[in-house]
């Protein structure tokens, strides 16, 4: 094999975007402790795509990933990678690279030895190994660091070694088990972009698990949101943000305020008040519903101010205000809907006046800004 750049050497069989790399069919995992860890999960992932499984801790996302890796066997259902059942071969024969939560680098080896490990274990031609290791050190921008021991590398550099080690044997599938969770924000954002760059360069099918909604939105082609062991929604990042399927998804991505009520045409009724909104799905008038409105969709103005562009207007008092740099967060309690507070982002706080705590204000939104979901009995 010639020493081509990683992008030239095809990793995945089949043409990207045309074949299904991972197929999860009706997978359930029961650890026997009451609740199902994963319940009837099904999805397909195209070759070369980057999928993120997003969910809070305990949502079953890591269990699902470990089943795809073949470390756990589902109670029922089937998982195939490139058409082959994942458990048809023992772990060391599978073509799956994984970056672990705590990286799991080998501390008794140098960076280069770590990266060479899968090549040696998989009996690559010993003559090609040093070249391949250098190639991947360059890919993760660690050229010249090969002889460093793991404890001589920074957190970000260790991440890069872990990525190179998982990719160097050109697996059919790359799995990322929250490897960025322990990094500080700056480094995490940098590594998110790195994951994306490397994934694009190699075109390797990737499944990432995280609880960080920003990471999911930044890196993924597709996102699956999980909660309580169930897949809540599977969509592209933009669609997921714009058109959440249910209140959980609406609340998990972004910052939203929720209002309980019952369905009426063109919105919901909360007590005496009509609030305009868009029904997500068909449900009869009077159904118990939950409206969600994102913080950046709510307008705020001084009492008696101009919010004529909004079809729902409420009056209230600023309870709290937090300066977040690029925006100002207001927490507003309204007279019309007692018992809840609205969270509102006011962008560009430099050029607008600020409202102090206790100021009387007016807030409002339009029908398309509030999504209304059927309340789930829980």
């Amino acid at each position, binding site marked *: 094999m010639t020493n081509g750049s990683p992008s030239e050497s095809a990793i995945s069989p089949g043409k990207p975007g045309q074949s299904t790399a991972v197929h999860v069919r009706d997978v359930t995992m029961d650890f026997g402790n009451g609740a199902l860890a994963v319940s009837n999960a099904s999805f397909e992932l195209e070759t070369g795509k980057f999928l993120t499984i997003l969910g809070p801790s305990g949502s079953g996302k890591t269990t699902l990933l470990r089943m795809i*890796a073949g*470390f756990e066997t589902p109670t029922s259902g089937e998982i195939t990678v490139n058409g082959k059942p994942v458990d048809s071969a*023992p*772990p*060391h*024969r*599978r073509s*799956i*690279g*994984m970056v*672990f*939560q*705590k990286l*799991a*680098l*080998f*501390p*008794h080896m140098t960076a280069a030895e770590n990266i060479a*490990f*899968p090549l040696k*274990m*998989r009996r690559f031609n010993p003559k090609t190994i040093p070249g391949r290791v250098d190639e991947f050190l360059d890919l993760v921008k660690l050229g010249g660091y090969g002889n460093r021991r793991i404890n001589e590398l920074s957190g970000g550099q260790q991440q890069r070694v872990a990525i190179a*080690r*998982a990719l160097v*044997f050109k697996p059919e599938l790359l799995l990322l088990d929250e490897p960025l969770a322990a990094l500080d924000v700056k480094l995490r954002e940098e590594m998110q972009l790195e994951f994306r760059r490397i994934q694009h360069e190699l075109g390797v099918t990737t499944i990432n698990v995280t609880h960080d909604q920003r990471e999911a939105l930044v890196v993924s082609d597709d996102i699956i949101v999980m909660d309580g062991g169930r897949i809540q929604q599977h969509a592209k990042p933009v669609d997921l943000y714009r058109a959440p399927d249910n209140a959980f998804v609406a609340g998990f991505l972004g910052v939203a305020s929720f209002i309980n009520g019952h369905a009426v045409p063109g919105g919901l009724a909360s007590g005496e008040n009509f609030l305009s909104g868009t029904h997500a799905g068909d449900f009869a008038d009077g159904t118990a519903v939950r409206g969600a409105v994102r913080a950046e969709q709510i307008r705020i103005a001084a009492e008696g101010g101009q919010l004529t562009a909004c079809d729902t207007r409420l009056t209230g008092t600023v309870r709290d205000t937090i300066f977040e740099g690029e925006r100002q967060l207001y927490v507003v309690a309204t007279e019309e809907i007692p018992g809840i507070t609205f969270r509102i982002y006011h962008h560009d706080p430099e050029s607008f006046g600020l409202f102090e705590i206790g100021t009387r204000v007016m807030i409002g939104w339009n029908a398309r800004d509030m999504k209304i979901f059927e309340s789930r009995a829980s």
Partner: protein
Amino acid sequence: MPRDSEDRSFRYPLKWRIMDGLNAALDLLWPRRLGRYTGWALLTPALLLVGILVLGLFQIAENSLHTLDTSTFLPGEEYTLANYLIVAESPTYWRIIWRSLLGAGLTVFFTLLLALPYSYMMVRTNKAALRKTLLIVLFLPFFIGQVVRAYGILIVMGSSGAVNDALGLVGIEPIRLLFNFPAVVFGLVQYMLPFAVLMLAPALTAIPRETETAASSLGANWLKVFRHVILPMAKPGLVGAALVVGTLSLTDFAMPAMLGGGSQDFIANAIYDQFFRTADQGLGSALALLLVALGSVIAGVVIAFFGAGTLGMRGRK
């Protein structure tokens, strides 16, 4: 003021007041400016204890330089290296030294061979019941003294013991299992196993399970995981356990005495004989110093090559 009475009736809990009193007393006895010597003060008792040992060693060294005067049965006056010459020129003592070293080496080998899977199982199992069982089985013989244990082995493995009875059931004639070199090594391994398991357990616990999973996902089968990941990462524990088991075996007295039946003496038995049977303090002291030197050199070499392991100061290697 109305709150005054309340304030006066208020008292701190008794425990706090006792602690305050103790603190005040301590401040008087050991003023704060002596703070930087506190560490040394706490170290003193241990240093004294070791000091006594060192004094004893000097005494032994002195004794070893006098030969026994066979006419008076008292140590001679003049200083001489004759005792060391006796040891050096005696094939019997060379055999005993060699036997002790070989016995200790074999004990280290077999003990680690048995202890590694035992501790691995104990550390890695998800079943609390199994972990507890393994611990209890490990500790039960630990509570029984060495002599009692050796006696137990004598009973079980004797010519009419349980082992030979069992062999008899399958038609094998009683064989002599005791009073030979393998019997001593067997006894030592049995004696050392808990030490080794206890020293290996923390080293194995320190290897994250994820690291093994990672190795297997990277293409290593279990044998390769063991060879390339577990073994090198458990090295500090293995070195520590080997040192402890090795030095304890090398200097052991009871197992060779009881299971060797007098034919399998280790250095400690030879020393005992010189001190308490022939009353040749000089020769006994020379042998004792030789044993100390032997043990120290081995420990020194091991530490120099492999680091101090889990015995303490974390070496880079």
